[in-house]
């Protein structure tokens, strides 16, 4: 009986804790938006973060995009060959990249490359009292430290995702046309006939912006909320990767259902 009460109490405690944390996260997100002025008035701060989140993720995005496109070309060809429609390879590669794989995989890579770095950086700034020091200097750390990182992430994400897709299409072209020998003309024309600018490309961009918001917001919150110890920061880094990956996949399902339903 006592064991049961104890169990119930601990469940209740966890629920209250989760709700409390959700509220805290929402308030944090609101504060980021409220103090975003600094990120744009002093755009240099954001440019600096664009370097560390965007430019530093460039190599992994380009290489991964290339190989994903090559795999798509190979697998797509094997499957399409059975139905004698190898010419549709271009549209298969491009559609899967632009609609899904580009935004989703680029965001997953971004979460583990830049998101975890953001969490670790902010967590360490907190652990070494740099955040407190800033507050004591009458400088709002959310405006000065968090905001520029957030906007840099939101700006980087669609660009990285576009680069990923473009590299992927190139990779698919290399495998499909150059190596296997699918007709070049039908590769491109089928692609252009199937991919619609508004419906596919623009929706892909919207997706990646949403993912950018989600990943950076999670990464920054986890860093800001991390216990100021070594274990605290490493735990927060792990949580960032896990939570933002889940968030990306769940959001992707919701956005896909919303964007590509019906028509």
């Amino acid at each position: 009986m006592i064991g049961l009460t104890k169990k119930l109490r601990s469940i209740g405690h966890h629920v209250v804790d989760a709700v409390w944390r959700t509220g805290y996260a929402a308030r944090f997100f609101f504060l980021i938006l409220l103090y975003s002025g600094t990120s744009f008035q002093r755009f240099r701060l954001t440019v600096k973060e664009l370097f560390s989140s965007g430019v530093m993720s460039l190599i992994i995005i380009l290489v991964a995009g290339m190989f994903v496109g090559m795999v798509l070309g190979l697998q797509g060809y094997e499957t399409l060959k059975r139905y004698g429609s190898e010419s549709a390879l271009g549209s298969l590669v491009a559609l899967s990249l632009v609609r899904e794989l580009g935004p989703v995989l680029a965001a997953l890579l971004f979460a583990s490359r830049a998101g975890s770095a953001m969490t670790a950086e902010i967590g360490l700034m907190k652990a070494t009292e740099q955040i407190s020091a800033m507050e004591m200097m009458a400088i709002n750390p959310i405006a000065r430290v968090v905001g520029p990182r957030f906007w840099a992430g939101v700006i980087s994400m669609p660009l990285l995702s576009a680069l990923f897709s473009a590299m992927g299409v190139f990779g698919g072209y290399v495998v499909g046309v150059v190596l296997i020998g699918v007709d070049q003309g039908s590769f491109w024309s089928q692609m252009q006939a199937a991919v619609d600018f508004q419906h596919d490309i623009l929706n892909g961009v919207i997706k990646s912006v949403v993912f950018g918001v989600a990943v950076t917001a999670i990464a920054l919150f986890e860093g800001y909320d991390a216990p100021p110890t070594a274990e605290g920061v490493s735990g927060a880094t792990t949580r960032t990767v896990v939570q933002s990956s889940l968030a990306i996949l769940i959001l992707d399902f919701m956005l896909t259902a919303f964007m590509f339903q019906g028509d």
Partner: protein
Amino acid sequence: MDRTALDLWVGIFVVAGLAALSVLALKVGNLSSYNMSETYQLQAYFSNIGGLKSQASIKSSGVLIGRVAMISLDPERYEAKVTMNIDKRYHFPKDTFANILTSGLLGEQYIGMIPGGDTELLKAGDEIKKTQSALVMEDLIGKFLYSKADEPKQPAK
């Protein structure tokens, strides 16, 4: 990292990203193949549009000349009202046929325009009177079965 070197790298990153986006838009997508700003609208009523969707292509002699802008059900006629955006460069006679066709056996559905011989041309906002609905597989099979049933039985020998 030096200030200018950092700026340079961020600049390269942004330019490359935008370039990739425009490659996607122009080379991969179909943004280059038609220009939405120079279009005029036509309407047509169909008793059945089958699987036609908005953004579906409109072709004449196989050439893309426009896109379906909107599909709705006319509440008085109980027919599907299809609004089409047609490229300004192309004009069609009043007695043009609008047919809903299928590309390939199982492909997407599109509207095919077959020009008539009228000297008067369709103006923006006009209605195409002569239309032919989509072929629906169930109807086809149904018709085929009925016609088989109606055929006089072969006299037994």
